[in-house]
């Protein structure tokens, strides 16, 4: 029996149209808009000015605290301005806008493709390097990676978990990386193990990617301590808490972090970025983005420079389909619908999904029939029908007691509801109200 998490979960249609298409390098755009806030934490402070010349990999914005990240130029050229541009949140936010001139890289970056296996840096140096290189969680959460590696005193980490689950339907960027960059990824994992001082790393991959699993299994033999585990296909297995439960059967306590159960989780894409930063001195300025959808002519996986407008990817994949009804930044379960193709690709962009109009509408709403399907699919063991009602009634203390803060917003409840109720919409609303209350209580 394949491992999986025991409680709840759903299995939406996979739609991985781009799974067999190798990663292509997207041609350089004319201009890039690089947001200074593309990670969780404090927005970075720009260190360039209008008119400055930059090379690929030059730092253009500096980390503004411990939970923050450096940002590097993804192109060479001239800084045109620092201005507000709409990003995937729908808000205009400050971006460094650079006109592209050629493709000149910072000399310190090792551009050779040779595999560099020896890890010469110490654990502290590795963490500094990762911090310096602006690496954040590339699974989509964009939490600065050096923070996760800096284990507080008194906490003991004994296992590193690598997330290659890619449980979101449609997305295939991690899948392609596990096929095409497996060796680099494994060295990246070794680097992370050294930084954390752990001897065990478990890679979790869902069983709908058998080629990735066998590819990793073939080469992982040369990397002691690293194991590859095939997991049963079940959404939301890529959720940190669900993945830890599935792989090592430990339950992150409510309100706690993975390090409370001795684990740290990093995404496969992050492991690759760590390899490139530590071994090749290459900061994070490009990533793999899946551009896909039912009507997309050429579903693709692109290697994209950060700051490239999404419209460039759409053009490269055969243009925007005529029946387009929705454009989603991310996967169909947790991604954000956007209303412009001019938003820039950021560190957290794992895919752009284009939905045809007929799949863009919600189900018609009717009365809750108390079928309890939402209760049975909730991976956090909550009662979505009840939280929905409490949120509507603004019963904030009951919401808090009902565990609304434990909701991981995976959307399984709304996905499964036969009455078409937008359960997660109201639960999110309730959650934000409750978290405000909790914050004001602490002050």
């Amino acid at each position: 029996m394949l491992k999986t998490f025991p409680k709840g979960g759903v299995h939406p249609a996979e739609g991985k149209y781009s799974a067999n298409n190798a990663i292509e390098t997207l041609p350089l755009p004319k201009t890039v808009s690089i947001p200074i806030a593309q990670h969780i934490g404090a927005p970075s402070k720009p260190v360039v000015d209008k008119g400055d010349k930059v090379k690929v990999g030059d730092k253009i914005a500096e980390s503004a605290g411990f939970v923050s990240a450096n940002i590097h130029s993804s192109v060479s050229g001239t800084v045109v301005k620092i201005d507000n541009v709409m990003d995937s949140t729908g808000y205009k936010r400050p971006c460094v806008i650079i006109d592209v001139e050629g493709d000149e890289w910072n000399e310190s970056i090792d551009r050779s493709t040779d595999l560099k296996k020896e890890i010469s840096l110490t654990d502290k140096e590795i963490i500094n390097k990762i911090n310096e290189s602006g690496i954040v969680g590339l699974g989509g959460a964009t939490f600065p990676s050096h923070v996760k590696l800096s284990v507080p005193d008194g906490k003991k980490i004994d296992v590193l978990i690598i997330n290659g689950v890619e449980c979101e339907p449609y997305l295939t960027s991690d899948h392609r990386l596990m096929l095409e960059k497996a060796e680099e990824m494994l060295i990246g994992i070794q680097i992370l193990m050294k930084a954390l001082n752990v001897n065990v790393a478990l890679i979790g991959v869902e069983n709908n990617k058998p080629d990735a699993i066998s590819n990793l299994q073939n080469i992982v033999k040369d990397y002691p301590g690293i194991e590859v585990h095939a997991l049963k296909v079940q959404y939301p297995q890529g959720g940190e808490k669900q993945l830890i439960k599935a792989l090592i059967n430990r339950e992150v306590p409510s309100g706690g972090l993975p390090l409370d159960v001795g684990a740290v989780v990093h995404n496969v894409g992050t492991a690759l970025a760590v390899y490139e930063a530590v071994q090749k001195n290459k900061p994070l300025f490009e990533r793999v983005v899946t551009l896909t959808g039912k009507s997309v002519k050429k579903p693709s996986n692109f290697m994209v420079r950060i700051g490239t407008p999404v419209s460039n990817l759409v053009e490269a994949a055969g243009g925007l389909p005529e029946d387009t009804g929705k454009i989603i930044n991310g996967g169909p379960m947790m991604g954000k619908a956007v209303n412009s193709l001019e938003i820039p690709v950021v560190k957290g962009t794992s895919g752009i999904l284009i939905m045809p109009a007929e799949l863009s509408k919600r189900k018609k709403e009717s009365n809750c029939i108390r079928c309890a399907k939402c209760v049975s699919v909730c991976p956090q063991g909550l009662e979505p029908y009840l939280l929905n009602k409490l949120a509507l009634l603004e019963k904030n203390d009951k919401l808090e007691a009902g565990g609304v803060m434990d909701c991981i917003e995976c959307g399984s409840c709304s996905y499964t509801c036969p009455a078409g109720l937008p359960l997660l919409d109201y639960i999110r609303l309730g959650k934000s109200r409750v978290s405000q209350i909790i914050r004001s209580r602490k002050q």
Partner: protein
Amino acid sequence: MSKITISPSPHVYEDTTVKRLMFDVVIAMLPVLAISIYFFGMGAIIVTLTAVVSCLAFEWLIQKYMLKQEPSITDGSALVTGILLAFNVPTNLPIWIIIVGSLVAIGVGKMSFGGLGNNPFNPALVGRVFLLISFPVQMTSWPVPTGFSNSYTDAVTGATPLGVMKEGIGAGESVSAIMDKIPSHMEMFYGHMGGSMGEIAAVALLLGFVYLLIRKVITWHIPISIIATITIFTGILWMINPESNADPLFHLLTGGVLLGAIFMATDYVTSPMSVKGIWIYGVGIGLITVLIRVFGAYPEGVSFAILIMNAFVPLINMYIKPKRFGEVRND
């Protein structure tokens, strides 16, 4: 790119709808309906049609003219209520009584609480129990299952096996002597006995159960917890004294146990939300059923048992919660 939809996640949905679930229940009831027509003839058809048409009509009328809302009779829930009400009455019941029963089921049992999803009690059972109390004679005259030629208006009637058993034990007869007077277990299994229209054929009910499980309309928990409780409870009584207590199989095959366990106790609206709660509910229904049958005044108690446990559902939902992820700390 003229019309782009913006909405929060998730952006995909399962294709299950309330309508599909309701029509799956209707499909699951078809074998039962077929066997009832086979044994009771025209009566079964007339009773079912009357109940269905009047349930749909009352729902439409009440929504349209009293509640002033968009009628939702196409969602299939009133259809299910209608068929279930028909399943719970004898096939020679006068048409006007069925109409009264439908009005009580839909009007009192469902719409007075706010319609689908808000009713605490199973509407079909509200209708049935109302009729049982108001028209005890008509509700307990059971046509003998002679076959399709069975007449609706002047069917030959007889007692149900449960009735015979209750009366016999009350009169001091031994169970083995009573058993000779009623159909064998095998005949009961395929429905050759008197009773309410939908409760006679265990084989058809079980077929419907399997269909509901395959289509994932219900889970096994409610039916199995009820059946297991009745089996164990009546099994203990039977082992204590097999001459004054019927065997467990007799209890499962007669009366409304299977109909209730598979089609009525599993009603989404009136059953608990958590698996733990469902066990309490199912065991409760089983216990109350046996208590009424063995120690109570009525020969049959499934309807009362389900309604009583329906009343406990809000309480169960309030106090029995699913186990949350991360609730117990790993130390």
